[in-house]
């Protein structure tokens, strides 16, 4: 039963839904679903609706409305509106017939002239709106009225010629009735131009500028975008799209009736809104406008085919659109909230009571005062030294909250200098054979800084998990790293579901959201070595260089993953049920390892971890400042050996000088201590330690020989990856 529960919480459908909702392509899910529903409904109710001929017919009839909807969408995306699209369309329809049939112009010239017509009206709209700063709604409405009146007048005048005229041209007939690979020519135009328009608005500079202006005119101006030109361009393009629609319509219908284009601006507007394009501008895509247009088109077409009475058709469409728009607006507005409510998906983690930490309790974890009198280095000169490291010249490097690596110069560490500014949030560090600092940067990846202070990127992505909706190829929260003798960099990507600032939420989940990743400098490739790990944090190459030691913070375990020798590829737990949450691991001079416990477990939080539904309710129902979080304001440093046996612990009671200990580094007889939220680096002497031992020598010095120092390790459990 419990196994079933564990399984349920581990693979909760919430995970999939949450990650789906997070995708940008899920935004138009309502119009998309409605489109499919409408289509399916008509397939069921209308005989041979899905036959080839019928589909061709639908494709033949749709494109003009789609182009007009695209034109409307473009103007809305630019932050305005273009009500003149229907009138431009009708006039273009008339002009095409007039040029071709009355004036006997050749087809190419007609096409150019009609498109120029659209551009001209667009330029009038755009000129007034962008340069004369008139309001888009009124401006284009006036243009609509003028054009409509002119259209009625002119078609009246040329009624006789148009009623009797026809044109005998193969090209013209092809434009009106031709097929390309079975697809009507106007549909081909729509597909090609729709794709171009999409690319234009998302990939091409001037198109992206239009979107930017639509999102926020002020911000766009501050970013140096020529707002006026972008607006102008948007209306010109909208005009041209409408004119193109008119041209294709003329070729297909061969008719300029008084009802041509009447109300099309309303349909186009409805299509845009239905597709979920924000009337405030800047939010939406061409494809959404097309979806909206397709829904309206299919509804009208289908209801007419069903033989519905005309007035009923209009009423039914109005009702359906109203319902769809209302639902879509609610959905788009509340999608974020839904996501927020269901994204956090706690899993089942069962702990047994840990070893006692009580002072005088007799365990290795018993509280003591060994860090109490630590010497403070860089007091108030540093913010959040998550990790520290010392180079061969005893200089001290640490990471800072603001994204830089700070160096304090030996011997007294009084002089502070910004060694390099990378950005992001630098965390765990290591020094490679060339004495470059290699550092994990949360939100960015793994970076390096050479001794000449030049910064280089090591890696910022790994292979994507094929079965996940969420794109996890980017490194999300690179946390700690170490470098194997062959130069391979092993590092932890603590979670792929949350940012550094939301680590507590990942803690509530307690799921294997993180991974151990390896960068191979020889091939310059990055591969995920172990996936689905529950917040892998500290990483350290064992003294013999044959294994990677790493910890799972939420499961309070130390793991060993063999990377060389006979057991290569094997994963084992070497320490389980630690009394605190483990963080960074580093080598000690005596062949053992230092481990920081960033916080201490508490019975109440252990119970909470065994009750996922409790944590779900907590996250949903109470404000974050009242959440029950793992206690990370007070911890200690412990030492363990290759068997995972904890040997001793060092405490700062009450966390006065060293709350939230995340790292420690041994160097020439001293232990340096860093903390994620601390304002100092602590230093305590280690009695009896090798006064000449340095980390760099341990990794790269002459004394190190591969596979030399270690005793044979015993596995304590076999292959348990996560909860």
């Amino acid at each position, binding site marked *: 039963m419990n196994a079933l529960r564990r399984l349920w919480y581990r693979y909760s459908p919430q995970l999939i839904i949450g990650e789906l909702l997070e995708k940008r392509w899920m935004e138009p899910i309502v119009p998309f679903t409605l489109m499919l529903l409408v289509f399916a409904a008509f397939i069921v109710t209308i*005989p*041979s609706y899905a*036959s080839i*001929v*019928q589909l061709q*017919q639908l494709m*033949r*009839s749709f494109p*003009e*409305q789609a182009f007009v909807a695209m034109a409307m969408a473009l103007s809305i995306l630019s932050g305005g509106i273009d009500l003149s699209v229907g009138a431009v369309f009708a006039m273009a329809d008339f002009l095409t017939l007039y040029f071709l049939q009355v004036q006997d112009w050749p087809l190419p010239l007609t096409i150019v002239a009609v498109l120029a017509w659209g551009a001209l009206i667009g330029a009038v709209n755009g000129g007034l709106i962008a340069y004369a700063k008139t309001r888009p709604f009124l401006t284009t409405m006036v243009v609509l009225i003028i054009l409509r009146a002119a259209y*009625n007048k002119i*078609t*009246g005048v040329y*009624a*006789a010629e*148009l*009623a*009797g005229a*026809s044109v005998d041209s193969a090209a013209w007939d092809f434009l*009106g*009735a031709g097929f390309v690979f079975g697809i009507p020519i106007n549909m081909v135009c729509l597909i090609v131009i729709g794709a171009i328009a999409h690319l234009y608005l998302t990939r091409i500079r001037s198109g992206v500028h239009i979107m930017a202006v639509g999102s926020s005119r002020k911000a766009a101006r501050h970013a140096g975008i020529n707002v006026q030109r972008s607006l102008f361009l948007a209306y010109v393009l909208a005009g041209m799209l409408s004119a193109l629609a008119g041209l294709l*319509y003329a070729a*297909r*219908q*061969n*008719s*300029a*009736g*008084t*009802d*041509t284009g009447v109300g099309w601006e309303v349909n186009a507007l409805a299509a845009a809104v239905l597709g979920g394009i924000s009337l405030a501008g800047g939010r939406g895509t061409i494809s959404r406008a097309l979806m909206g247009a397709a829904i309206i088109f299919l509804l*009208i*077409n289908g209801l*007419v*085919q069903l*033989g*519905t*009475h*005309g*007035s009923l*058709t*209009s009423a039914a469409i109005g009702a359906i659109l109203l319902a769809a728009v209302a639902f879509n607006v609610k959905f788009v507005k509340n999608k974020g909230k839904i996501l927020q409510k269901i994204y956090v998906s706690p899993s089942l983690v069962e702990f047994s009571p840990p070893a006692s930490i009580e002072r005088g309790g007799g365990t290795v974890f018993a509280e003591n005062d060994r860090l109490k009198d630590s010497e403070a280095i860089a007091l108030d000169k540093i913010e959040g030294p998550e990790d520290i490291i010392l180079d061969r010249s005893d200089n001290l490097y640490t990471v800072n909250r603001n994204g830089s690596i700070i160096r304090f110069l030996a011997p007294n560490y009084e002089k502070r200098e910004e060694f390099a500014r990378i950005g992001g949030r630098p965390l765990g560090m290591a020094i490679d054979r060339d004495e470059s600092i290699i550092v994990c940067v949360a939100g960015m990846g793994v970076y390096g800084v050479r001794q000449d202070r030049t910064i280089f990127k090591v890696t910022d992505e790994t292979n994507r998990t094929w079965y996940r909706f969420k794109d996890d190829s980017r490194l999300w929260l690179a946390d700690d790293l170490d470098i194997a003798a062959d130069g391979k960099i092993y590092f932890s990507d603590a979670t792929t579901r949350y940012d550094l600032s939301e680590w507590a939420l990942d803690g509530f989940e307690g799921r294997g959201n993180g991974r151990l990743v390896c960068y191979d400098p020889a091939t310059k490739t990055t591969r995920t070595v172990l996936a689905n790990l529950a917040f892998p944090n500290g990483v350290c190459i064992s003294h013999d260089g044959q294994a990677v030691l790493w910890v799972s913070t939420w499961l309070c375990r130390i793991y060993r993953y063999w990377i060389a020798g006979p057991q290569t590829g094997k994963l084992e737990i070497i320490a389980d049920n630690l009394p605190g949450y483990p963080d960074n691991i580093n080598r000690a001079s005596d062949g053992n390892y230092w481990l920081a416990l960033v916080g201490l477990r508490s019975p109440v939080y252990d119970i909470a971890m065994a009750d996922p539904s409790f944590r779900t309710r907590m996250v949903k129902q109470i404000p974050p400042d009242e959440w029950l979080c793992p206690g990370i304001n007070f911890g200690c440093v412990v030492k363990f050996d290759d068997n995972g046996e904890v040997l001793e612990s060092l405490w700062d009671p009450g966390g006065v000088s060293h709350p939230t200990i995340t790292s420690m580094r041994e160097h020439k007889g001293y232990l340096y201590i860093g903390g994620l939220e601390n304002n100092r680096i602590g230093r305590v002497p280690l009695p009896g330690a090798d006064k000449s031992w340095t980390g760099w020598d341990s990794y790269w010095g002459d004394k190190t020989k591969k596979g030399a120092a270690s005793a044979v390790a015993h596995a304590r459990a076999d292959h348990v990856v996560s909860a």
Partner: protein
Amino acid sequence: MSNNTNSILSFMRAGVAGVALTIAASAFAPAQAADPRADLYAKFEKAVKGKTVAWVPVWVGVLEGEWTRVMKAHFDDYGIKMVMRDPNLKSDVQLQAVSTLINEKPDILIVQNPTTTLLARELKRAMESGIKVIQVNMASNQLTDAYVGADVPKLGRSIANEVIKACGGGKGSGKIAILQGEATAAYSFDMTKAAMEVFSKDPSIKVVSSQPTNWDANKAAEVTTNVLQQNPDLCGIMSVWGPQTAGAAQVVKNAGKQGQVKIFVASDGQPADCDMLEQGLFYKNLSYRADTQGEAIVNAVLTLLQDPRPAGSTQLAYYTTNYWVSSKADRQYCFTVPKE
């Protein structure tokens, strides 16, 4: 009991006689048809029963509703299936509807063209794919198997002559306004053209305005308002269709010119036409009677269904007869819409 036995016996005798007759008949079969009248009906039934007629008006107004009602009544009787599509005055939707129907291959396609050009290409395609096409009242540039409807130029000439009688030759100012329908619809276009030819021959008539109203009473009211302002001495208004003319008549009435401005209408005989005439809003109404036109459409359908030649072979015309409605006595030329 005995009575019963007797009747059974007589039934059996009749049966024996019947069998004998059948044998005799089959022996001399080619020489003598069993019943020529029954054969005729069998042929008729074979030709029409179970056939499908598709009908696409521009919308379902009073006129189209009457056509539909009459057609449906007859088709139901003959066992003909009718499908109707209502584009509700949207020409692009009508084109879609016709295109789709062609793919559905009905036996007969009946259309009312909103313009001369819109459906022309599709009607040709329909005939090419074997569908016989009938155009009703509003034709296109494409001739098809049959046309049923008013002789539109004749309508125009009749009305024009009547207008001249009332306004020409010094009676009144001689100023005439023409209210067209949809300018590019054949019905409006041809009627206006024919009337203009008549008017142009009479120098006493001056056409001061000829504008499309798109079948819309509000538009007609606007046009009429402008015309009356510019020509207070207007003598007559010629309008191609009844419902739109109601707007013009109200304007004339409100301007206090009822009687001075005589309104001549060609229309389908819908009840409102006769009502308006009886109220003195219309001066004369030339009715082509949608109810009898409906029957003419049915006749054309029957003809084409029984004609074994393929689509596109014929170009039949069924011109309907026009009736003058000048007073209450002519009410018979307007149809009544049955209450449903």
